[in-house]
């Protein structure tokens, strides 16, 4: 186990700077998720930690040791790739113990570690199969198994669930969380899926254009987004970002209100709105409405609430849950 520290990391490809001067501390034993839209530099950051890319400037420290110039295999990390990167001509067992064979570990110990990893990941019956004979979820487990057996200090996971279908993704998410709890190692996980970020992380790092927008526990980001970008990125359905004048505040550019923080009433309220689209999710009903003076507002309602397209209602944002942003898109502490 070890903390990961990035000191003034800069990465440029040719003349293009992907990551300009970034500092980050990943605490020992934490599950840190790097999240952001495509091209925001999160995968590059992970590859810098892994040693697959060399920083243009700055240092990478793992467990207090400067590993900026060290080979990936000497960093005591392991990495799980988006495409699994399983070795197609080797069996599951050979895939898992490949790194151990390179370390010239005695056969008995290797076998014991593979057996242990296979047990944790429920792969015992597949050890003699080739990757092509496995399902997507099983392949992902093999990739994780390959990481576990080396007892790394830090696990790096690069969008490991994005190739799986929705049901399997949900299941693997739970398995990953359990794995983190049982191993207790530091995990750095890259995803563009904010649901994965929210459900798995102790600490979320929201990235945008190579910079860190905000770092914090999931609920802090949810409750107190530091910028418009974070507000829009975290939470599903997205936060409503409305012009300040819609709540009678000319001094703020944008007012954010989450769909579940809007009260709905049939007779009175702040905005008069018409229902445009209704999504029934069972536990919740999501209504997309158009209000006077505002383009559209998304509202989360209890699942049993029956709404029809064209229904007219009054909406009122809860003042305590309003998020206000200035001209630069930065948070303004709300005046209640």
């Amino acid at each position, binding site marked *: 186990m070890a903390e990961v520290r990035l000191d003034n990391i800069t990465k440029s490809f040719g003349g293009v700077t992907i990551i300009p001067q970034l500092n980050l501390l990943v605490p020992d034993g934490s599950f840190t998720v790097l999240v952001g839209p495509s091209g925001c530099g999160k995968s590059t950051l992970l590859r810098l930690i*892994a*040693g*697959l890319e060399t920083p243009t400037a700055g240092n990478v420290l793992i467990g207090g040791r400067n590993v900026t110039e060290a*080979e*990936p*295999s000497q960093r005591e*990390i*392991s*990495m799980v*790739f*988006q*495409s*699994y*990167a*399983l*070795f*197609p*001509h080797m069996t599951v067992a050979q895939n898992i113990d*490949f*790194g151990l064979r*390179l*370390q010239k570990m005695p056969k008995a110990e290797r076998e014991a570690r593979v057996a242990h990893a296979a047990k944790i990941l429920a792969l015992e019956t597949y050890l003699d199969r*080739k*990757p*092509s004979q496995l399902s997507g979820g099983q*392949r992902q487990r093999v990739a994780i198994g*390959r990481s576990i057996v*080396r007892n790394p200090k830090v696990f790096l996971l690069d969008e490991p669930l994005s190739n799986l279908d929705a049901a399997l993704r949900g299941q693997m998410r739970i398995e990953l969380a359990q794995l983190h709890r049982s191993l207790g190692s530091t995990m750095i996980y890259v995803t563009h899926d904010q649901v994965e970020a929210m459900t798995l992380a102790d600490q979320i790092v929201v990235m945008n254009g190579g910079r860190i927008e905000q770092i914090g526990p999931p609920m802090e980001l949810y409750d107190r987004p530091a910028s418009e970008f974070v507000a829009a990125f975290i939470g599903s359905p997205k936060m409503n970002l409305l012009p300040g004048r819609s709540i009678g505040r000319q001094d703020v550019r944008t007012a954010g209100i989450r769909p579940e923080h809007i009260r709905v009433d049939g007779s009175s309220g702040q905005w008069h709105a018409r229902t445009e689209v209704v999504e029934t999710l069972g536990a919740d009903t999501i209504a997309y409405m158009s209000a006077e003076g505002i383009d559209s507002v998304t509202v989360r309602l209890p699942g049993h609430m029956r709404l029809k397209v064209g229904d007219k209602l009054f909406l009122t944002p809860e003042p305590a849950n309003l998020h206000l942003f200035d001209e630069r898109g930065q948070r303004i502490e709300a005046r209640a």
Partner: protein
Amino acid sequence: MTRSNILREIIRVGFLCIVASFVLGPLAATVLGGFKSNTEIQTSALSLPEIWRFDIYADILSDPGFWRYLGNSLIISVATVVLTLLVGSAAAYVFAQVRFFGSKMLFSYLSLGLMFPFATAILPLFVQVRDLGLLDTYWAVILPQTAFGLSLAILLFRTFFSELPKELFEAAYVEGCSYIRFFWQFTLPLSTPILATVGVFVFVQSWNNFLLPLVVLNSREAFTWPLGMMQYRGEFSVEWNRTLAFVTLTILPAVVFFVAAQKYIVAGLTGGAVKG
């Protein structure tokens, strides 16, 4: 099936038969020629023999010279294939995997070899081989053949290697695998289709090579089969039936080699070898 479909099918099969006959016609004439007398070959080359003469094939098979030529050809061809595959794949691996200054220029320079006609190099080659003291040895044929086969081999290997998923290398690299180990443990085992394809090309080319052995091999002991075949050409007459029987027997290994490697070539064309 509609009428136009039937017509299209007939045209297709007919066309394929014509194309196949270009290969099978001469092959059949060669095989059958070995059973005929010289007169019969000259009067009716494509017909079945009037009298089937098995003695010509039997004579050749019982001649120790034939087996020696065949052995020489086999040693030279196999050595050429092994050397071309080793050197070509190693060079192509560097071009595909490592970014270094001048790699594009060096690669273009190597590819230029594709345009270089072998026959024009024959005299300087002879001088070089003689100076190295390799005349009348297998190496006199193996080394130049390998050198001339490398352009195509590197071109084909590089294309194939660069299509192997990058993550495979990165995953192995993170585990502590070196470039050289990756080459032996991953690149080569995952490239059997292209290794087979290049191997077949090189083998067949070496097996049928006539000009280079003619120039650099003088002793009968070192002759390859195309040179051995020349023993049936006298100053005043050519023993066509013996020549054809000899050719039939000597092309058999090349055909067998091709059939054996065909599975891998087809596998390479249909893909899926790497996707795990």
